[in-house]
């Protein structure tokens, strides 16, 4: 979702310019009713984001684990998404998007006015960035899927050893003290990031930097998988990982183009950028592998696709297609080095590179959005004070990093205290499928 205030004005103007006088009057007179086209697009987008989680992310992550942990990986993703949805309607939506605020926390968190969705009915609407509205239930659902996927992304660093119960406790605390506040900072009408003019079209900060940094901190606190890095742990099914990659790409259009909240031309821009940044990133990862003396790999293609999607998330409606292509390429190359060189050098076990791709890619995307938004690079942003915008972006990024790191630290402490955090050595060795769920993925 982009800078609401600024763009809302512009879109509103152009819309009105395109309408005859009688219609303008009518539009002003009538109470807001959602245009079915916008509602339809937002429902479609919501469904697409769910598809990113199950089966998308479940397959992407699951294929990368060993077969003895396949069900554990998929079930943790599925179950934590369910849990996030329930928390969301109980108090999450209120804390992130409620219309009052907790005194003293203005700009950082909303209040409890919409706990249990108080007051929302089928006729309630939520404003878009122009003067249109969509059904509030649709908006709540759309945003619900964002919360669900973000916590699921964190698991990428923790699979193959994190207890199911620990994950549930972690999710409860983390969503409450990390996700809802950061979501409010970016998307709340008085949110501090929005206020400082940070550009973040579809939630690069809230979703990817947040998840990536939290994944890193949690992985450090949880410790390495037994045998890592000496024992070979090749992906048990790159086929499934590729299926997951495809579904993530497909679903990401709901994520990015849906964040416009309308089926308009800016959504179209977000869509084309989500195509080309991703295509560029997929190819550039493989190219980088070649340049580094290796074969271009299938997992490289997948990794590039995700890196590109992550990087274009904040940029989607904020840059031009050729800015997006360059951004995708840069993100892909840097993530490649991070994942293949920096991580092994540092030796921590971010098992599926949740930080290496979502964290690093998210940061590149956020900063890059500040650059490529400029008209000079084909962006829709006019001639900006480039340096200033980049500074604002960096400030938002930095704040998110610190917030996520501290919050994750607390959430992990609680999770470990209540559940132990990590499965027993024996379960880790036999696999979490049998140990935690009493099943095998393949018979």
């Amino acid at each position: 979702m982009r800078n609401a205030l600024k763009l809302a004005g512009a879109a509103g103007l152009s819309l009105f310019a395109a309408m005859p006088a009688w219609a303008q009057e009518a539009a002003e007179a009538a109470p807001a009713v959602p245009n079915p086209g916008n509602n339809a697009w937002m429902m479609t987008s919501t469904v697409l984001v769910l598809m990113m989680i199950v089966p998308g992310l479940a397959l992407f992550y699951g294929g990368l684990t060993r077969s003895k942990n396949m069900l554990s990986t998929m079930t943790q993703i599925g179950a934590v998404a369910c849990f996030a949805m329930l928390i969301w309607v109980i108090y999450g939506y209120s804390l992130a998007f409620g219309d009052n605020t907790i005194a003293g926390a203005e700009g950082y968190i909303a209040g409890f006015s919409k706990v249990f969705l108080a007051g929302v009915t089928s006729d309630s609407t939520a404003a878009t960035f122009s003067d249109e509205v969509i059904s509030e239930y649709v908006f709540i659902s759309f945003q619900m899927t964002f919360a669900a996927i973000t916590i699921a992304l964190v698991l990428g660093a923790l699979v193959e050893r994190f207890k199911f119960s620990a994950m549930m406790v972690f999710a409860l605390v983390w969503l409450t003290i990390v996700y809802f506040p950061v979501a409010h900072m970016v998307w709340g009408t008085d949110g501090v990031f929005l206020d400082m003019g940070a550009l973040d079209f579809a939630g690069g900060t809230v979703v990817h930097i947040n998840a990536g940094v939290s994944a890193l901190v949690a992985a450090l606190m949880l410790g390495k998988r037994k045998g890592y890095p000496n024992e070979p742990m090749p992906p048990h099914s790159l086929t499934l990982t590729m299926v997951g990659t495809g579904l993530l790409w497909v679903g990401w259009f709901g994520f990015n183009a849906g964040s416009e909240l309308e089926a308009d031309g800016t959504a179209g821009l977000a869509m084309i950028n989500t195509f080309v940044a991703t295509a560029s990133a997929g190819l550039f990862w493989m190219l980088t592998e070649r340049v580094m003396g290796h074969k271009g790999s299938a997992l490289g293609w997948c990794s590039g696709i995700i890196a590109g999607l992550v990087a274009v998330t904040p940029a989607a409606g904020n840059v031009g297609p050729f800015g997006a292509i360059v951004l995708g390429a840069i993100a892909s190359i840097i993530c490649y080095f991070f994942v293949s060189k920096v991580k092994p050098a540092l030796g921590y076990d971010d098992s599926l590179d949740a930080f290496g791709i979502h964290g690093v890619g998210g940061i590149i995307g956020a900063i890059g959005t500040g650059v490529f938004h400029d008209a000079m690079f084909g962006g829709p942003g006019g001639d900006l004070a480039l340096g200033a915008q980049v500074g604002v972006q960096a400030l938002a990024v930095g704040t998110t990093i610190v917030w996520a790191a501290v919050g994750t630290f607390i959430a992990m402490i609680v999770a470990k205290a209540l559940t132990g955090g990590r499965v027993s050595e024996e379960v880790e060795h036999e696999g979490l499928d049998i140990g935690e769920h009493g099943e095998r993925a393949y018979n």
Partner: protein
Amino acid sequence: MKLIIAIIKPFKLDDVREALTGVGVTGMTVTEVKGFGRQKGQTEIYRGAEYSTNMVPKIKLEIACPADLVAGAVEAIKSAANTGAIGDGKIFVLDIGQAVRIRTGETDETAL
């Protein structure tokens, strides 16, 4: 009676089976195995993590046959499975004390 155990390259299976049929072998049992030896395995890389498996996919044949067929069978395997490249595999011959055909209860050479 002898049990011939042969480790061969997977893509040679059809040739070997035909060669064995040619010398009068009527049955065998086939297992997918992995072999460790002079032949080096492929290197796989996943996001920078390199795995050189050292394990190469092979096919193991087990052929029970009368002693007088052994020489011919070994020869047949040897020529059909040979590519001249490292990793062509091995043949081992062991003694069988007793053999039974489950369906009929026939024993020893008639059971094969």
